[in-house]
């Protein structure tokens, strides 16, 4: 199925609906994992809005992404507890290791790096979450090692 056909299918329930921008974008992101340019333009057409309007809404919410997510999503908690326990240095280390800024994805689409607000596991601070696995009491060394493991296992 081409991207065009896939979008048509996902957007069908929202066609011509008023006030459906966010649900439509959520549906598209769920199906594609992100919002490519074509998704914005097809969503705009379906809702009889301009691409600019859709883009404005999509960029407002942190939830929407414009790049394909990496194979592994690495999240570093930047909540108060993690912050005082040194999470900024972990972010710096991983940014350097992966060669990207937080919020970006590596060129080989292996890793995406994100900073999140509070994960709610302050007792384990500083916390790193890779996909659905939680790693507590992180240090820069441990964080590097963990990513190496993900790098090696396909």
């Amino acid at each position: 199925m081409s991207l065009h056909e896939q979008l048509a299918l996902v957007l069908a329930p929202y066609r011509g609906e008023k006030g459906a921008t966010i649900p439509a974008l959520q549906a598209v992101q769920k199906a594609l994992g992100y919002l490519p340019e074509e998704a914005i333009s097809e969503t705009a057409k379906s809702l009889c809005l301009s691409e600019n309007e859709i883009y404005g809404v999509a960029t407002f919410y942190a939830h929407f992404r414009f790049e394909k997510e990496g194979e592994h999503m690495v999240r570093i908690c930047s909540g108060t507890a993690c912050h005082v326990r040194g999470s900024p240095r972990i972010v710096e280390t991983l940014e350097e290791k992966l060669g990207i800024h937080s919020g970006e994805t590596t060129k080989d689409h292996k890793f995406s790096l994100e900073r999140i607000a509070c994960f709610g596991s302050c007792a384990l601070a500083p916390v790193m979450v890779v996909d659905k696995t939680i790693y507590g009491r992180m240090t820069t060394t441990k964080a590097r090692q963990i990513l190496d493991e993900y790098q090696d296992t396909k």
Partner: protein
Amino acid sequence: MDKIKITIDNKPITGRAGMTVLEAAKMAGIYIPTLCYHPALTPFGACRLCITEIEGMRGFPTSCTTPVNDGMVIKTNTPQLQELRRGILELTITDHPYSCITCPTNGRCELQKVAANIGMKEITLPYIYKKRPTYRNDPFFDRDYNMCILCGRCVRICHEVRGATAITFTQRGIKTVIGTAFGRPLQESGCQFCGACVDACPTGALTERAREWAGLADRDVVTTCPYCGVGCQLSLQLKKNRIIEVLPHEKNEVNRGQVCVKGRFGITEFVYHPQRLTTPLIKRNGKLTEASWDEALNLVTSRLANYHKDEVAIIASAKCTNEENYVTQKFGRAVLGTNNIDHCARLCHSPTVAGLARVFGSGAMTNSIHDIGEAACILIIGTNTSESHPVTALEVLKAVRRGAKLIIINPREIELVRFADLWLRPRLGTDVPLLMGMARTIVDENLMDQAFITERCENFDAFKKSLQNFTLDTVTQITGVPKDKISEAAHIYATNKPASLLFAMGITQHSHGTDNVLAIANLAMLTGNIGSPGSGVNPLRGQNNVQGACDMGSLPNVFPGYQQTTNETVRQKFEAAWDVSLNPTQGLTLTEIFDAAHHKRIKAIHLIGENPILSDPDANHVRKALETLEFLVVQDIFLSETARLADVVLPSASFVERDGTFTNTERRVQRVRKVIEPIGASRPDWWIICQIARGMGGKGFDFENPSQIMDEIAHLTPIYGGINYRRLQKGGLQWPCPTPDHLGTPILHTQLFTRGKGRFTPLQYRPSAELPDKTYPLVLTTGRRLFHFHTGTMTRKVKGLNTLLNEGLVEINPIDADALGIVDGDILKVISRRGEVPAKARVTEWSPAGVVYMDFHFAESSTNILTNTALDLVAKIPELKACAVRIEKSHHR
């Protein structure tokens, strides 16, 4: 309206229910600082500067979002409020560069004014440079988002008023910046370049590039836009007698602070263009050479005097003022002795004038532009309103926002389709059956306005009988529109009152153009949609003064005010006034004039400000006709394609170099004001005509100024009877305005139709004259684009407009393109029975399969070489909107 008594700063004020505190204060002349407020926009409450103290209310309500209530006691200027405002403003200014003296908006900046009022003593927070993007590559204006204070006025005007939604807030929080999807250039974002955002911007974030360093204007003059028939009022900004900027005028009934790209950015450049004609030219040895006015005028008068009255014709101009058209037709009738006078109205709304005059008694727009915004339903047929009449389209959007139903009938997917409740896409040239099908549904399902039909109309039974031929099955078969859609359209139109009906060239430029107009009139009468606010039959006229040129009698059959030349009493009146005997025979129409020239029956033409080589159908035929003439005089501001063929070219002054009036599409007579001296030796057209008329012994051409001409017009033209320059000083007047104390007529046919009763007309379906066949399998339809006007004589002189569009495109559906192996950007040959032209392909679904679309702005792709001269029998309009063509790929250009 409910009156509400309030007190602001101890001053008792009477407001109206629904007003905000800010509006009441403004009305009373009390200043409250604002940045995000704009009178055209819904309240936003973002800048927080308009805070007030209101007794009995907690906190500091923003006056822009607080409605007035009876007995409210409001304070706007307490020390505490000013202290709060200083704090808020400090936050705004912290990341706005305060190097005002190097800012192009210095002196015009609202942030400066607000800061001065609040009295910023010091800025304690450190200045932050935002490193926001700046964009300087789009035409006409620059965007520097470091100057932006995020008041959102640009975004809101683009969304709420213009409907373009080309810009928006992107990102969030401290990263928020105004932009387009994916940071694309404005040219790819759907921007119309109307400049509304620039006008709305309170700071130097958005600035018009051409005026950036021109400083402050020292005076401004209000005048009427010279482009389309909407008649927008412009405020020309002058510095040392040079126009530095053209702004939309706020306080008027037509455009209310809005204007389109051509009026906003497309004027100064053509006015001061180096190619303006600055001296008369005479053809010597086949070459146009400079001459003096005496030489040129002597030549014209001596040559024109040699011809018999049946051998000469005048082609007048819908670009010229009423006064100029009046003296032109007077010159033709009283001096040359001929009624061979016509102009481009023949090619646009002659079926409207002929059709509506027959069934209503008056051929003009029944309602006003502003009235469209009040409609509960709008039916738009045969007009691409947002490209051809951009400011009228804003009223449509306003109505839609208020909940009005919008029905579009157009084979092409026009911009307004995005806002429509229903879009019918009939085959080209099948409007009569479609409208009759709608009428039949309305009659069959008893949705008509029986009382209106009985009391105000006649001939209904004959019309009802003619509906028999239009069953929905037949109509669907002819038009290609599904039955349920026809029925739905009929329901929407008949049950949402008042319903306004807009139409333009898509209806009239057919060999059955008059029938199309009559079908529209039938539908409006059937549902009682005539004579009340928000209803009506509204032809949108194309040229700035095409309404006025018709009103002034630049037509072969009528004197000014549609008084028939064949009517004995009328003729005697004009004979007495002009002190001559007048020719009773009806003259030739525009299309007939070129035919007669071809056959050497017409030997001399005096042509003013038109460019028929590009604008008239079968352009090769027109060119040959003009070349066959013995003598051709052309008055124009530029050496147009047609002027190049002339024996004498007389340089005209442009609209900013002469006084006069234009009558817009809604019959509103508005002033055109002289703001600068004529460029070079150019002269106003009325002066030129009067010189020639006097040179040929004409009497009654001793006018000193156009105001005197208007007085003569008022004297002889009942519908203009009450119009004079003193009254127009206060604003436009809509005819009929018969006496000096008459306030003008915004809506026609309110009590009675002008002719008494509205007449229903039975109709038959007649297909277009030239249908596609094996050799010419596609249908070509034509129109205008937003960024250019007509044959481009003015707009193609404007650099920015050329950046936006600089070549003729042929729009073709992907299905047809695939079949012919055409991709976007290919150079094509479009071939009809009359000729061929090159044009670049634009593959788009805007065009339905089987139909190609071209504009006629570009001489290099002169579309009218292809179009058909088949005429409507009543109005003599040629079928510009449909002819058969074939397309080939071109291998060279």
